[in-house]
């Protein structure tokens, strides 16, 4: 058994799990944070994407023990004070979802992508960057629109904040 401690959405958590426990299982079953989804179980679909130490990773392809000592952010950690994160708001505004199963992973990937590209995104880049996230119902059109809109709003926000 592994004793695992990490910071999840700003809160220090710890728990005991088997060494083979995946990070996504730990998040869902030990911590009860079920916003992070398991879609494919073969490391392809990206529904389980969370941020570990500031980087988007597939939490179904990492052991909880590997994340011991790390900072993890899940979909539940994005909004603050009851207000949606700009990417969440953009997905709602542009209807970037249908069944919603892939949405947590899509949004965590989008936040990571916007941060890495400093908000400077075009459609081609967004589509390439979404290679690790699969949506099986809406198609990607509105998802891409939502990411682009959020990127431009976050870019403006960053500029205003800098000024």
């Amino acid at each position, binding site marked *: 058994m592994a004793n695992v401690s990490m910071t999840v959405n700003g809160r220090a958590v710890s728990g005991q799990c088997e060494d083979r426990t995946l990070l996504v299982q730990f998040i869902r079953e030990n911590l009860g944070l079920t916003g992070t989804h398991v879609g494919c179980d073969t490391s392809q679909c990206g529904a389980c994407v969370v941020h570990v130490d500031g980087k988007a990773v597939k939490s179904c*392809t990492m052991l909880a023990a590997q994340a011991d000592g790390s900072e993890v952010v899940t979909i539940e950690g994005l909004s603050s004070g009851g207000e949606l994160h700009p990417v969440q708001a953009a997905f709602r505004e542009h209807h970037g979802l249908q069944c919603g199963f892939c949405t947590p992973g899509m949004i965590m*990937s989008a936040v990571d992508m916007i941060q890495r590209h400093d908000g400077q995104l075009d459609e081609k880049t967004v589509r390439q960057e979404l290679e690790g996230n699969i949506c099986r119902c809406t198609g990607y059109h509105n998802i891409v629109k939502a990411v682009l809109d959020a990127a431009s709003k976050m870019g403006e926000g960053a500029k205003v904040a800098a000024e």
Partner: protein
Amino acid sequence: MYATNYHRASSVEDAVKLASANDEAKYLSGGQTLLPTMKQRLAAPSDLVDLRHVSDLKGISVSGGSIRIGAATTHAEVANSAEIASACPALAHLAAHIGDPHVRHMGTIGGSIANNDPAADYPAGLMALNATIVTNKRSIGADDFFTGMFDTALEDGELIVAVEITAPLKSGYAKFPNPASRYAMTGVFVAKHGDGSVRVAVTGAGSGGVFRQSDMEQALASNFSAGALDGITVDDSDLMSDIHASSAYRANLVKVMAKRAVTAAG
């Protein structure tokens, strides 16, 4: 996944010691192939030795034309390295097109070459760049390192520490990714070296894993242009044939990707 025991190594020596304590132990680097394989119960190591926290295995250093990449350096780090982009842009391009962004945040160069997947990108790059693979025991040239499909010259418990490359004069990489998996259905890395020689390495196509295409190397050594490959016909007898592509299709892809790689090298 079958039960396993997790260990976090603090140094190269510690990692080797932890791995040698158990016959069925495996090193865990980025885990982007090993963990999915374990989830499918196609691998069942009794112990996993995590290398992500071994600082000696990390980092990129470039000095003059000498490039050294620590084995636990991620694909994203290679792809985004300004030093690699200037010394060997084709290698940065290769790393930027492995898997997807999340896989690149975890997957490492050492893990990729230790696994030597016949459709992985790095084996072609390192063979064409005539890289040296440095382990905890010795240095191995890329030609000797990649010994067959999922097979390398690594002995039990031997750990890759770094990869060393002399920057080529020119290099280019082109791959035809499988539309679903993004693995190379054929990928060709072409490098023109300081001594005038050219090396052409092919991944994704050979039934024995990565290989060099010597007739292309000779043609490009005398004339480094895509047109120099026009007269070459690739023999398909040792190429893979599967649901994704026949061996004849892959043979054609080798030529098309080689020409694109030469064009990309400029």
